Each structure stands twice: as C-alpha cells, then as structure tokens.
C-alpha cells in the first residue's frame, strides 16, 4: 500500500520563500510523480508543534516530515511516544531509532556564494542581509565571508539584519532599505538570507542595477540578469528523498549533515544567470566547490561553537 505521509511546517508557513516552501516543493514533486498524497499542517508555536505531531502520529502516519529547528524538541518527545511512526526532522537534530535528522552545511554553499560575489564585485565591497541574528543566519554570513576572503583578503563584507522578531521575515521594505544603504556605501553584490524580506533586497538590487544572490531555492529566475546566483539548500530534495525512500522501503533513521558533497547545498547556474557568470567566476567557484568536496578546504561552521575566522 501507499505510505501515509505528513509534513509539518513551522511558524513561517509553507510560503515563506525559505525552507518551508522548499520542503513543500519537494513534497509536491513527490506527489506529482507518484500520485501519493500527503497531509500538511502548520505549527505556529512550539507548543502546537508537539500537539500536531502527536495528532498526526495518532493517525498512524508512516512518515512525518518536520520542517525547521523549532520542532526539534517536539520531534524528540513525540517520536519516543510513537515508535512505529517515522520522523524526518529538517534543520535540527533529534536522536531515536525512528528519526532521521537532516541538517545542512549552509556554510559550504554560502562559501561558494562568497566566492562568486567577491569575483563579481567591482568595488570589492559586498553585502549580506540576514533576517534575524540567530546561529543559522550567522552560519550563512560567516560562510559567505570566508568564501569572499578566500578570493581577496581585503574584500569588505557589510552585514545587516532586518529585525529581531518574527516580523523580520516579512518586511520587504526594510530588506530593500538595507540593500539601498549598503549600495550607498559602495556595495555592489548583496546576499539576502531573510525570507520574504529578502525579496525586497533582490528587488532593490534590480532597481539599482546591482547584483544580488538568492537563497534556499533557486531564485535566479526572479530577476534574470541581476541575480548573480542562488545558494540553494535542498530541503526539497531531503523531503523528496525521504518520501521516496519511504515508498521504496529504503528509509533509514540517522543523523545526516548534507553539504556540497552530499548534494545538500549548492550554487545555482542556469540560463537566467549564465550571462553574469563569467568563465573566470565559474572556474573559481567550481574550483572551490571541488576543494571543499575533496576536503582540501574546510569551511568553518560557527554552530559548532567556533568563532567566525573572518
């Protein structure tokens, strides 16, 4: 029989232009290919996460995908109560024989974005705009800076955060304003990691004729010609794979950290940004990519407690 599948988004909701949306896309692709449906719910608070996971588990679902670190504690708890139900936790780590935890090495993908930005920048000033100052976002920002400095030690990286509350992910005006301010200071490439607010950044870059870098999904197509590349984080693949494995009976519990090597993160090169990526840039980025995969370059992950080296 077809597996019974569920997906639980966190407070951002499935259209957050970030990992929730990416998860939704992965699940949708699975549905399209297999015609197997899935239940989807949004948990607006940590309390609700527990409630909804338990609710779905009671329905004897086979696999529940929990999107976002906010559900970590809930997954940990509910998985223990329902050993027969399997859980996929995205962006967080929980232990158990029925849990698959998937985290991403955002620092590696961001490193590539940093390399590309440093190469493309004429002013040698690049920018970063994050949603909220939390470890995840700092990981992006630090990886980005590492990549850029690897190209040019003197490059200047300006970082701004949109805000401090949940609203910070939905404030495109502020996202745009931060971009303007960075452009005024000479920045000519900006990396936006701020959900809906980041859309304001991309938009402003287009308006001002500067370059921007998208995040999470491939955003190159939003403003072809001004989006240098996107740092894609394959939450979609993770969800798709988990669903597929469930269907094929190959699903396994465990803790996985997916970087460039595992195909968890990458940079995006397609017809939309083909013209922007010169052969030199492409060569340099692909080189860095290979070095990381081969282990020749180690990108520091600040979440491990290390300070950002740059």
């Amino acid at each position: 029989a077809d597996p019974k599948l569920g997906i639980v988004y966190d407070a951002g909701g499935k259209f957050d232009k970030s990992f929730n949306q990416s998860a939704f896309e992965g699940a949708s692709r699975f549905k399209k290919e297999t015609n197997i449906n899935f239940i989807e719910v949004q948990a607006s608070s940590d309390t609700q996460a527990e409630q909804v996971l338990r609710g779905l588990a009671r329905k004897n679902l086979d696999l529940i995908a929990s999107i976002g670190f906010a559900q970590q504690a809930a997954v940990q708890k509910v998985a223990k109560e329902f050993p027969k139900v399997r859980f996929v936790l995205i962006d967080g780590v929980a232990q158990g024989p029925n849990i698959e935890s998937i985290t991403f090495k955002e620092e590696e993908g961001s490193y590539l974005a940093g390399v590309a930005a440093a190469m493309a920048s004429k002013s040698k000033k690049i920018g970063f705009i994050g949603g909220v100052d939390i470890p995840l976002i700092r990981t992006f920002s630090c990886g980005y800076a590492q990549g850029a400095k690897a190209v040019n030690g003197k490059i200047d990286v300006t970082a701004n955060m949109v805000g401090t509350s949940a609203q910070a992910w939905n404030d495109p005006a502020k996202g745009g304003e931060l971009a303007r301010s960075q452009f005024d200071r000479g920045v000519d490439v900006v990396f936006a990691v701020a959900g809906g607010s980041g859309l304001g950044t991309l938009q402003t870059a287009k308006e001002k004729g500067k370059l921007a870098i998208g995040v999470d999904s491939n955003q190159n197509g939003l403003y072809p010609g001004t989006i240098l590349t996107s740092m894609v984080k394959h939450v979609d693949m993770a969800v798709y794979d988990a669903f597929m494995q469930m269907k094929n009976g190959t699903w396994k519990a465990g803790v996985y950290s997916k970087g460039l090597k595992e195909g968890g993160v990458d940079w995006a090169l397609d017809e939309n940004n083909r013209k922007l990526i010169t052969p030199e840039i492409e060569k340099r980025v692909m080189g860095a990519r290979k070095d990381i995969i081969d282990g020749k370059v180690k990108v520091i992950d600040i979440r491990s407690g290390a300070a950002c080296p740059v």
Partner: protein
Amino acid sequence: MMNKDLPRWATAFVMPVLNLLSALLVTALVIHLLGESPTESLAILVNSAVVNPEGLSYTLFYASTFIFTGLAVSIAMQAGLFNIGAEGQMYFAGLGLTLAMLTFDASLPAWLLIPVGMLGAALFGALWAFVPGYLQAKRGSHVVVTTIMFNYIAAALMNTIIVKLVPPGEQNPASRAFAAAAEMPRLNQWFPILGETPLNISFFLAIIALVIYGVVVSRSAWGFKLRATGLNKHAAHYAGVRISKMIIIVMLISGALAGLGSVNSIMGSTHYLSLNFVGGAGFIGIAIALMGRQNPVGIFLSAVLFGALTQGGFDLSLEKQNIPPETVIMVQGLIILFCGAMENLYGPAIAKVLNLKKRG
C-alpha cells in the same frame, strides 16, 4: 443609554449571543467563499475546542496565559494607564524565569523550583514595566508610547541574549531544556482523560489571580484608590492617593502579571526559552481586557473564547485544507468587533421588539 431600558436578561444574554452570531455569520460567509462548508467548519471548531476533552484541555492551556496578560492590561487600565507592553513584559519575564531555572533546576526540589520560577518571571516582568511606569509618573512620558517602545526593545534584547543561551552545536535559538523537576505539574496526572496536553496548574494559578484581582479591585481600599485614580486624578489626589506612587506600583503589578503568563508558556509547555515564545499573547491580552471590561468574569470568558479559537482554529486548518490558519486571526478580529466594539448593535432592535410585545 437605551440599554438602561432593556431588561437584564436581554443585555447580559441575548445581545452577546446575537453579537457572537453576527461574527460567526460573517466568518461563515468567508468560509463559504473559500469553498468549504461553514456548518462543518463550525462543528469541527466546536468539537475540537470544547467537546473533545483533549481539545478543551488545550483551550484552557491557552486561556491560562491569556488570563494573565488580560489581567495585566486590565489592572493598568483601572488606573487609567494603557499598557500596550504586556507582550514585551511577558517576553522579558521569560528570561527571568529561565535564568532562575538554569541556575537552580539541578539543585532545588520541584516544590521550590516552581515558586522560584514564578518569582523570577514576576520580577523581570515587573522590571520591564517599571521604566515606563516611572517615566510616566515622574517625567510625564506617555505610557502608551514608552510601552510600545519597550516591546521593540525587549524583542531586540531577548534576541541578543537568547542567542547567547543556545547550547553549542544547536540550531534552535533557544536555551537548553530545563530539568524535569522544573515542569509545572500537568493536570492529566489527575485527569487522564485530558490526554497528553500541557494544561497544568497554571490554570488554577490564573483562576486564583482572577479572584485576587476581583477582590482587590472592587473590595479593597487600595482598589478603591486605584479606580479613583483611573477615573479622576484630581479627586484621587484630593482623597490622599499618591498618584505617582500609584502609577509606578500599578505598572509593576501589571508587568508582574504579564510575566506570570510566561510561566504557563515555558514551565508548563516547552520547558525552554525560545525566540518569540510569546507569540502575540500580550496583544491578545489587550483585546481580552477590553472585551472583558476589566471585570474578572469578563476576562475569564474572553480568555477562554480566545483559547478556544486558537485551539479550534488550529484543528480547523488541519482538517480543511482550504482554510489557512490565518482565518482564525480574522475570526478573532470579527469577534472583538461585534462583541466588543459594537456590543449595542442590537439594543434598539430588541427594545423595539419588547415594546411591540408590551403593546400587543
């Protein structure tokens, strides 16, 4: 004024019911437009929020927090102060509670941990309300403005601090989880029918707080002075009330009450401090205080209503894929609109009907 002519049963029962029905009618229309059946949706909502014991338990869990924030806003309102800052006060109080727990959860027994946690929360909540209160009393800075500012400041400050509390290697911007001893006893220990739900003794604390509030405000000399201050500052001064002290004390109490709301959210449910854990409960407190007329029974009923909407609406969006969770927010707004702002909508009509009867 017309209501004075209406019998009590009409104003206390018929009108609120009509108002609630109006709000539901508008909601039904929206749900219909969204392509779902309004009656089915209502059934799901009611079933999930009150009929089902587990749902009811969640309803009361949310209501417990709302009672505290509603009380916080209400008591300030009694003194004529519009405390918009319950959100920030509850948020900051979460820090006080968490610091207390992180320090003591390994060393103190459970029966001591809970009061210590409550104290930490109340202290920090009060502290966050103190500055606006002090500035209002001594400098005349408008408390509405300062409390709004303090909400923003709390958000920024808490973001800075919570990030520092994240255990290494963790993604989630949250503190470590507390020891089991620091968990509020859950009611399902005694009433297994409630299921695995976070409803805990905070609910009783909230009820006790309501009772104390009711008695203090309407029966005590201090409450008398409090209300006099809110209604007529000149007369209160004449009556010997120290107005600035009163303002500061009321804001401290208000902040402490908002702070106690975090005990339910954190010690009662998540057991760790996380970013944005308040999630608007402070703002809902404003709606509850206004709708409940700062009256203990009114506050209780409004808090339960909002708890029910939070719980029922959540299940509704779960079952009805076409109804996004945000629909509940709209319903909340509509209920406040009809039951709170336009409460007299049907007064004249009812009066007319009654008059006709009398004559006919």
